[in-house]
């Protein structure tokens, strides 16, 4: 099973008349595309709309578009419950997780892609095996482990768990991408006396930026959105991540829907931004493809 990130030539239009024959059915396809986009974005647009509604709009009646738009919800969301603090905690956890995951996964993926060595396949499959095991499944032994390492209730503990969870799939994706980089480049580089580390930093990394952008996006969104592990490992409010902050929001004041949805929008913006950035960056030169 090989799902791989592949290097693609920019802007290769599909050749031939397409999936639906000579009649490409552009008009019905466009209508369906609009419906799909409405279904996908509808609840999120509604969330944004709710975040601008005043309390009188939010209680007891169906209001699609705010009648008296207000930013009061945002002010309240940001200032109460130290939400800004949770936000910074999550930025810290997610960014550090991405950096460590990308570095460790790149090193390992490079070894799997370029070297033959005893036990290569075995080690690779041991990495892949954990894809079959959902991360929340290990929450009990991980809790006891962090406890013993004195990492319970710390952002560092979360980072270790998130890195470990993300590594296998990212190694898998990057290995596939590295395999598509012609060996000749590397040989030329080594001829000039470059060691492995220099090959990685000066040759492979720049060539792989689009793939790294995609891997970073996957890892960032996983770490940013993660809930059950953070819920379990973090006890003190000063170490809460944004998802815990959000969940507590609803418990703390059940009727304050407006501030909650404002907080939800705040919690959604970074991950969407990272996604859009990765799309811009990754556009030329990578596609999630090569399922052979």
């Amino acid at each position, binding site marked *: *099973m090989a799902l791989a990130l592949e290097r693609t030539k920019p802007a290769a239009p599909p050749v031939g008349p397409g999936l639906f024959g000579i009649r490409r059915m552009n008009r019905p396809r466009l209508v369906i595309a609009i419906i799909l986009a409405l279904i996908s974005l509808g609840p999120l647009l*509604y969330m944004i709309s709710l975040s601008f509604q005043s309390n009188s709009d939010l209680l007891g009646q169906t209001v699609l578009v705010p009648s008296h738009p207000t930013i009061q919800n945002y002010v309240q969301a940001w200032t109460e419950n130290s939400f800004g603090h949770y936000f910074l905690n999550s930025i810290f956890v997610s960014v550090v997780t991405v950096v460590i995951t990308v570095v460790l996964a790149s090193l390992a993926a490079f070894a799997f892609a370029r070297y033959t060595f005893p036990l290569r396949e075995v080690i690779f499959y041991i990495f892949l095996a*954990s894809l079959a095991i959902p991360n929340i499944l290990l929450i009990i032994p991980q809790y006891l482990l962090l406890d013993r390492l004195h990492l319970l209730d710390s952002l560092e503990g979360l980072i270790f768990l998130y890195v470990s969870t993300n590594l296998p799939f990212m190694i898998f994706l990057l290995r596939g991408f590295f395999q598509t980089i012609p060996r000749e480049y590397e040989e030329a580089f080594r001829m000039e006396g470059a060691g492995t580390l220099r090959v990685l930093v000066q040759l492979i990394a720049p060539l792989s930026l689009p793939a790294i952008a995609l891997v970073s996006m996957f890892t960032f969104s996983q770490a940013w959105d993660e809930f059950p592990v953070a819920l379990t490992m973090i006890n003190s409010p000063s170490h809460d991540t944004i998802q815990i902050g959000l969940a507590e929001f609803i418990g703390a004041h059940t009727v304050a829907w407006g501030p909650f*949805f404002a907080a939800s929008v705040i919690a959604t913006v970074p991950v969407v931004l990272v996604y859009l950035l990765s799309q811009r960056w990754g556009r030329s030169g990578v596609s999630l493809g090569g399922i052979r």
Partner: protein
Amino acid sequence: MISSDTLERRPAGVSPGAASRRSVRSRRARKVATPYLLIAPAALVYAAFTIYPIFRQFDISFFDWHIFPGATNSFVGWSNYTAIFHDPVVRTAAFNSILFIVITVPLQMIFGLFAAAILTDRLPGSTFWRMAVYIPVITSYVAVSWVFSYIFSSQGGVMNAIIGLLVGHSVSIDWTAQTWTGNAVIWILTIWKGIGWSFIIFLAALDAVPRQLLEAARIDGASERRVWRHVILPSLRTAITFVLVLLVIGAAQVFTQIYEITKGGPYNSTQTFMTYMYEQAFQNFAFGYAAAMASLLAVLLFGFSWAEIHVLRQNDS
């Protein structure tokens, strides 16, 4: 650690024979060690925080575990496992989990494949449509769980308003407070959030289907149905297996949306295997029992993935 390898650098053209025997050997040793050194940092983190916990979990599952400091844990053999099979809530939870998998996985796949088929060829605004379909995947379950709760709320919920318009009088269904409607909200949310994931995988697979092949089949007079059945679907088989395996694994760990929307209630009726496991561990502090549940599910999922991949391999050869 790895930088030792860069010491190997030498001016181009100097033959290795010029070096002493000893340094040739150590250089070769370094060369042999390089891939292991590259893998070592990732392997260390992974071994400590993923592999070790897998085995540790089996270990815990054989004890009556007390998490309070100083307490002694007594070995109870397989009794945590036998207890699972006599726990009525486990039966409900397992049933709900299986139902959740059976309902959400195929629908995510069908909608994902449908969206991919619509958007694979160029269309005005292609990039936008593709991004729109994917965006729900990256949103957080905590946020969207409550958006859906609100949409399905009995007071001013959009869904009740729509149904009210359709049936002609106002309705006030309290969706999330009842078993089946509560389950339905969770399923709808999960499918909505999951379509984009299978969509990108299927999109990649469909993009790779050679269009000339389709054209040739059509020129030979094959109907659209035959083209799909005999050309397009077979080339999607790996993607379908991949998506199926990972979606089932994902569905088996359904947690956040249930924790947020119904909390497994009313009376445990929307509990799933994972939410019940979590409740046993972190509300009842029955670590041994919960670890046995988790180990059992791990073995099941592992077996399922292995079988699925094995079947795929066999079909390929």
